[in-house]
C-alpha cells in the first residue's frame, strides 16, 4: 500500500529548485543585513587596529607594548549561528491537491532551499535533516558557503516522500535527536512538516529542540484541498499512511474542517507552549512570503 502512495517528488511548478530558491531568497533579502555577530564573548577572536570610538576596555596593552601600536582584542560569542532545516519526508507529504502548485514535500523543499540560500548568503552555516524519506533522505551536515547550499539543494532534489510514522514511531526522534545533541544556544531550527499522523512523542522531540536557547519554528505545510475539503460527490479517500479507507462525500465537510481545526490547534498549543512558533504554509501561497515569515518568527523568538 505504501508503494502505491510513494511517488517521485512532484516538483510541479518549482523546478529547478536552485533557481527557484535563489529567486525566493532574493525576495527575502529586502531589508535583511549580513549577519556579523562578532563582539563580546568568551573565546578570543584575534586583533584588529584600534579605531577611535572603540571600547577602551578591549585595548590590548601587551600587544601595544610589543608591537608599539594600538590593537583591540576581539572575542567570538558562543552563540550558534547555524540554521538547521528539518524536512518531513513521510508519505503524507507526497499529497498534492487539485489546486496546489506542487506537492507538499516539494513545497517544503523549496522553502528549505530558499532558507538555505538566505542563510549562506548571510554567512550563516546551514544543515539539513529529514523525517522519513527512506533511502532518498541524505542529511547535510552543517556547513557554510556556496558549497553548503549546493549540497542542501542537491539533497532536496532527490528526496522522496517515503515512510509511515505509525509504523516507525521513532522516526521523529531519530531526525531531531542529532540536532538536540549538536545544536547550541542561538541556533535556529526550522521544521517543515504537515504534522499529519505524527506520534505524540514527536511533541517531546520538538520540545527538546526548542530548549536550551535554540530557536524552533515549525512550518505547517498544508495543501488547499486539505484546508477546505473540496469533494462534493461520493468519494473513497485512502489514507497515505496506513490502510484506512473512508467512503464519504461533501456532506461531511463541516465535520472534517472541525476535526482538522482541532488537530491543528492541539499541535499549535503544544508547540507554542514550549516557546516555539508555528507558521502555516499553504502550497498555493507565495513562497517568498512564507520564507520571510519564518525568518520573522525566528527573529521574534530570538528576541
Amino acid at each position, binding site marked *: 500500500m505504501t508503494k*502505491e502512495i510513494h511517488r517521485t517528488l512532484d516538483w510541479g511548478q518549482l523546478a529547478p529548485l536552485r533557481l527557484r530558491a535563489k529567486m525566493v531568497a532574493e525576495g527575502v533579502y529586502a531589508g535583511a543585513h549580513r549577519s556579523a555577530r562578532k563582539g563580546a564573548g568568551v573565546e578570543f577572536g584575534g586583533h584588529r587596529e584600534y579605531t577611535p570610538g572603540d571600547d577602551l576596555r578591549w585595548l590590548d596593552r601587551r600587544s601595544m607594548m610589543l608591537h608599539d601600536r594600538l590593537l583591540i582584542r576581539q572575542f567570538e560569542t558562543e552563540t550558534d549561528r547555524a540554521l538547521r532545516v528539518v524536512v518531513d519526508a513521510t508519505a503524507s507529504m507526497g499529497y498534492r491537491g487539485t489546486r496546489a502548485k506542487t506537492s507538499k514535500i516539494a513545497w517544503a523543499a523549496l522553502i528549505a532551499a530558499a532558507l538555505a540560500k538566505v542563510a549562506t548568503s548571510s554567512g550563516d552555516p546551514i544543515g539539513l535533516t529529514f523525517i522519513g524519506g527512506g533511502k532518498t533522505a541524505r542529511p547535510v551536515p552543517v556547513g557554510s558557503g556556496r558549497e553548503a547550499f549546493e549540497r542542501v539543494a542537491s539533497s532536496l532534489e532527490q528526496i522522496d516522500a517515503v515512510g509511515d510514522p505509525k509504523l516507525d514511531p521513532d522516526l521523529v526522534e531519530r531526525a531531531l535527536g542529532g540536532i538536540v545533541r549538536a545544536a547550541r544556544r542561538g541556533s535556529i531550527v526550522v521544521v517543515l512538516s*504537515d504534522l499529519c*499522523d505524527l506520534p505524540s512523542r514527536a511533541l517531546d522531540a520538538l520540545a527538546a529542540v526548542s530548549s536550551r536557547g535554540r530557536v524552533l519554528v515549525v512550518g505547517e505545510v498544508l495543501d488547499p484541498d486539505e484546508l477546505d475539503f473540496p469533494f462534493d460527490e461520493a468519494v473513497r479517500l*485512502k*489514507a497515505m499512511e496506513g490502510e484506512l479507507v473512508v467512503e*464519504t*462525500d461533501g456532506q461531511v465537510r463541516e*465535520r*472534517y474542517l472541525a476535526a*482538522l481545526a482541532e488537530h491543528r490547534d492541539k499541535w499549535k498549543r503544544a508547540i507554542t507552549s514550549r516557546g516555539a512558533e508555528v507558521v502555516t504554509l499553504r502550497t498555493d501561497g507565495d513562497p517568498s512570503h512564507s520564507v520571510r515569515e519564518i525568518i520573522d518568527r525566528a527573529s521574534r523568538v530570538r528576541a
Partner: protein
Amino acid sequence: MSFLSWFALGVALLAVVPYLAHRLRRRKSDDKPFAFARLVPATEPQARRRSELTDKSLFGLRALSVLLLALLGATPFVRCSRLSLDRGGASVALVLVVDDSMSMRAKDGGESSRFTRAIAGARQLISSTREGDAVAVVLAGSPPRVALASSTDIGAARSTLDTLTPSDRATDIDGALAMARSLVASLPQADKRIVLLSDLADGTDTPLPDDPALWVPMPELPKEVGDCAVLSADRSPKEVRVEIACSPKATAEGRDIELRGGERVLAKVKAPGGPRVSVVLPIDPRSTEDLDVLMTGSDAIAEDDRAAVVLEGSATSIGVVGDTVEEVTATGGAPVVEQALAALRTDLDVRPLADLPDKVADLRPYAGLVFDDPPGFTPEARHVIEDYLARGGVVLLALGPRASRAPLGAAFTPLLSTVPTWETAASVRDKSVKAGEGPLGDSAQSLVGLDPKGRAELADDDARGFSRWLSWSDGPLFLGQREIGKGEAMVITLPFALDQSDLPLRPGFLAILDSFVARARARLSPRRSDAGASIVVADSAVIKGPSGSISQTREAGVSRAVLPDIGRYVINVQDRTEVRVVAPVPRELTLRPRAAPQGGHAKVGAAPGAKLDISWVIALGLLVLFAAEIVMRVFVRTDPATS
C-alpha cells in the same frame, strides 16, 4: 440462423460495457489518496444506498437498451414460436377449423384447456394475415357449423373468436373439413389453406385425409388422456340406474357415485372397474325433487362427471307398419326398411307392427311410425294417427301401388286428403329424381338414376301442402314433409319394396330414414338427447339451460334449438313445462386422436417457427427506455437529497 443473425445477437455482449465502465470508474474513486483521511468521517449509509440505487437503475436501462438494439439488428432473422403463416406475396384464403367439442375441454396442458390454447393459436394466425386475405371460421363440434363465412374483415374474425365457447358436443372433423373446403372453393385467392385446431379425437381411427391444403399446427393438442363420464342416469320408481363410460386410459374404479338432491347426498356407491359400467342407487319413491348424479374424483374433463336424472318411460322405439309377408318373401329376412333402420344403429328399437293400435296411448313408446305402402287407413287408424301427430309424433308414409288401391272407406287423412294414384306408364320409367334440393344435401345424389317400375302421384292440393325435399325430374313430388299438429309427416312417392324400385339399394334411402329418425328423436325422443343435437320446439318456447337461455332458429318452417352443453334444460311453452336432459356422446369419450397427415404444413407453406418481423415492437421498446432514462436523469438532478 445465419452469420448475420449471430453477429447481431453478439452485439448484445456490449450490454456489459456500461457495467465495466462503472467498475473502472469506481476503482479510480476507490484509490483517491488523502493525507488527513483519518480526520474524515464516513458518510451516512442512506446516502450511499441512494447513490447505488440510482446507478443500478441507469445501468439496467442502458443494458436493456443495448440488448434491444442487438435484437433489433437480428429481428429480420429471428424466428418466433408463435403460429404464423409462412407466405409469399399473394393473398391467402384461410379457414380456421376450431374444434369446440367436449374433448377440447380437457386440461392436459396446465391451467388452460385445449380449447383455450386452440383459440390462442387461432388469434396468432389471424395476426399474421394481411390485407386482402380472407378468413373463415368453422366449428368442428357436431354438427359442424360456420361461425364466420369467408371475410376479408380481420376484425370480424377476431370478434368471432371472442364469442366462441367450448361445448359438450361430439366431434365431426370430416364434416367440418368438408364444410371448410366448400367455403374456400369459390374464393378468388389462389393460396387456400385449411387450419385444423383440434385434438383430432372424434371417436374414429382413420387418419386424416392427406390434403395438401390441410395444416394441423398444434401437435400438442392431440394427446390421449383418461376420462370417465356419466352417460345416463335413469330413474325408475325405486332406484336410479347410472351408466358410466371411460376412455381406454381411464377407469372409474374406486370413485364414488353420488346421488344428490341439490347439494345433499342421498345415496352413494363405489364405481366398479371397466370401460362401461352401470351402478344402481336406491331412491325414495316419494322424492319429487330434481336429482343429479355426481362422480367424485378428477379426470381430464370435469364437466361430464355430473348428469341429471331422467324419468324412464319415454318413447324408445320406431314402429314399422307394413305388409311383412310380402316384404319377407322379397328379401328373405326382415323387411328392408326394418333392416335399414337397424343398420343406422340408433338407440331406438325398431318394432314391426302388423296393425296400428286402436288407442293413441299404445303409441306412446313410439317416437316415429313408418308406413310402407299401406292400403289406406281405417277410420280408427286415422283417428289414432291424428292424435299421434297432434302430440308430436312423426310419420313416414311410403306410397306405392297398394296405397293407390285403397278400399272404399279407407283414406290417408290427416296426411293426404285424396288417395294417390300409381303411375306405371313407360314414360315414368324414364324419369328420375332431381338432386340438389332439400335438407338431404349431397346424399340425394345417389338417388339420381333410379329405376322405378312406377310412382305414386299426389293430388295437386296434397302436393302443395308439403315442403318439397326432392322432386322427380319432370316435376311431381318425390319426397316431402309437412307439419301436422305438434308432429310432422314425411311422404315419399315410392314404396320400399325392392320389386318396385331400387330405392332401398341407394345410400340416399338410408339418408331419408336417418333424417326421419332424427326428426322422430327430436319430436318424441326420450327426454335425454345428445349434446349438440337439435330439438324441435314450439315457436313460443323459452329454453333455459346450464349456461343460460338458448335461442331458437327456424329452418324449413320448424323452430329448432340446439342444446350444446351437458345438463338439464327447462322448456316452457305457455303453461306447460318440459325438462330435457343432455348427455355426452359416448364416442366423444374415446379421446384417442386420429393420425395427422405427415408434412402437411410443408405443403401448405406454413410452419410453427415462421419468420416474424417484430422490429416495430422492439423499436417502440427502445424509445420507451430512452424516455425512461431521460426522465430518470431529470429526476436525479432535481432531487435535492441526491444532489
